[in-house]
């Protein structure tokens, strides 16, 4: 199969611009789709062609499969890149693309379904010999709640089978709370995902979030990249990601990579994906979930391995082979940190802010990559997520990467909207982050005493 001549990007914002960059380098024409609220958006300007597919609300534009497919057909695009979010993990959309004769740049509908359903994904992990947290084999019926929870041992975590992004997770520390919490979790899941099925897992205290990027092509070649550490998160939303993890050594890295490759083969996965693990203090790692899309934090992997993951996605979707060998994928140089800069007011509990970006003066210089769709004078639409930019740093080692991050964040000057730039500076100055000993509870602990007491600290 030859490569595509034209690809439609079913997304907006920085990721749409990011995908277009690779397309242009590969000599492939790009088609942007946009909502009425995004007429002045950067991805519309950067694309070779752009079509308006609907009004501002995502449900009627970026999530409107019929409109996206019509745009692909009418512009003659042979493939659709879904980016992340929106339709990227929607099996129905992947299937609709296939039916319309358009290549979905991502895994098959079956893979998305299997791996998107947490209990099913867990079964695949067990089958592939990937370590999982002690937990129920599948979904738990109401009558078995007490017995199953006792078998795992408290604290127990209740999760929604169809959940994601941290939604629907509840922690139960003793049996007396179990019935109430499980009922709440089930009805919440029913309301949010239309599926009230829940399952239990052992709750691991103070874990690190470690994930492995992998890729597998239709010829059965699979590679895994060095792990990313995404432990700096707030309410399950990642703020800072880095690669490699300060808590992982060479032997552990090899085991993580092996687990990811086993999983990819077991699931017969074709595409680029990420397997997320929880890692306890003794460096035992447990399967958490698989993301069947390109992730926000993919650039840190690209940085230290000198690869282009979007290019690999496109090659795989076109039926080509992955362009790098397994040993080359795992071979890395230096250290990379990504900072997600959001339009949020952290003195007001990270409330999203909207408005016009009056000043947009961005960092540059050695080792600085900025993935963004923002420009001076841009009016932030109210409909979409609050991410303004990803600042991605590379340096020869972690210590220098932190110093470079600090320098680059200091060059970031934005006015008109509030940003999280100062939060990142606080994290970089925190001894626990500097020493590399953070877990997923780090942000909550850092913010708890400080924010109400001395909001002025952020203004420095």
């Amino acid at each position, binding site marked *: 199969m030859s490569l595509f001549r034209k690809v439609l990007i079913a997304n907006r914002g920085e990721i749409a611009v990011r995908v277009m960059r690779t397309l242009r380098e590969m000599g492939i024409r790009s088609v942007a789709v946009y909502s009425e609220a995004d007429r002045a958006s950067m991805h519309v300007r950067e694309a070779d062609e752009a*079509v308006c597919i609907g009004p501002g609300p995502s449900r009627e*534009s970026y999530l409107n499969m019929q409109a996206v497919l019509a745009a692909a057909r009418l512009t003659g695009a042979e493939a659709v890149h879904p980016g992340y979010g929106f339709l990227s993990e929607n099996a129905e959309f992947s299937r609709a693309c296939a039916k319309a004769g358009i290549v979905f740049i991502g895994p098959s509908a079956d893979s998305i379904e299997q791996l998107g359903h947490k209990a099913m994904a867990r079964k695949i992990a067990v089958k592939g010999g990937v370590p999982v947290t002690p937990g129920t084999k599948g979904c738990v019926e109401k009558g078995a709640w007490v017995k199953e929870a006792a078998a795992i041992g408290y604290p127990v975590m209740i999760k929604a089978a169809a959940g994601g992004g941290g939604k629907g997770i509840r922690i139960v520390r003793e049996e007396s709370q179990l019935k109430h919490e499980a009922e709440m979790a089930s009805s919440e899941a029913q309301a949010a995902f239309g599926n009230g099925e829940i399952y239990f897992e052992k709750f691991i205290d103070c874990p690190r979030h470690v994930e492995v990027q992998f890729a597998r092509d239709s010829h059965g070649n699979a590679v895994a990249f060095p792990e990313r550490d995404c432990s700096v998160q707030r309410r399950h939303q990642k703020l800072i990601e880095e690669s490699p993890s300060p808590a992982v050594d060479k032997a552990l890295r090899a085991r993580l990579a092996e687990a990811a490759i086993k999983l990819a083969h077991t699931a017969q996965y074709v595409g680029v994906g990420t397997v997320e693990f929880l890692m306890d203090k003794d460096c035992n790692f447990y399967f958490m979930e698989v993301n069947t899309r390109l992730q926000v934090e993919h650039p840190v992997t690209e940085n230290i391995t000198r690869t282009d993951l979007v290019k690999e996605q496109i090659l795989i979707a076109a039926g080509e082979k992955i362009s790098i060998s397994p040993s080359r994928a795992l071979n890395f140089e230096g250290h990379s940190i990504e900072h997600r800069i959001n339009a949020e007011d952290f003195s007001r509990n990270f409330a999203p802010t909207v408005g016009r970006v009056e000043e947009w003066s961005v960092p540059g210089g050695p080792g600085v990559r900025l993935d963004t769709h923002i420009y001076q004078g841009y009016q932030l639409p109210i409909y979409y997520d609050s991410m303004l930019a990803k600042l991605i740093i590379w340096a020869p080692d972690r210590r220098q990467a932190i110093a470079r991050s600090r320098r680059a964040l200091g060059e970031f000057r934005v006015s008109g909207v509030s940003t999280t730039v100062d939060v990142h500076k606080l994290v970089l100055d925190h001894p626990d982050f500097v020493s590399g000993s953070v877990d997923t509870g780090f942000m909550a602990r850092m913010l708890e005493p400080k924010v109400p007491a001395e909001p002025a600290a952020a203004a420095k």
Partner: protein
Amino acid sequence: MDIKTLGKLTKWMETTDLEEITWKGNGEKISLKISNYPQQGQMLPGSSLVAVNSPSIGVFRFAPAGKSNLVKEGSPVKKGQELGVVEVGKEYKPVLSPENGSVKIMSVEDGKTVEYGQPLFFIEPR
């Protein structure tokens, strides 16, 4: 919910920036939504003409297959009259006249690809 409360709620919603709200309770569920049909009835600056915009991305047809539509430049039209349809997938989305008047300009041809919000006709209101 009774009509009176609903009326109040609708009025209140118009005073806010909200596009959509859903209210649940007492076994009832009510969703209110501001119409997302592209802005219609917009006067062009310095002109009395009103643009009729495409309700969807798709292919414009004066009429669905098997039906006819004789609208042409100069034709009188009524508010709500179907001027054509936009074919998207297997669906036809109607293009409706926002005003009573006559068709002054037709800026689309049968079978042409159109975007969401693209002006298709200009109406001279009466």
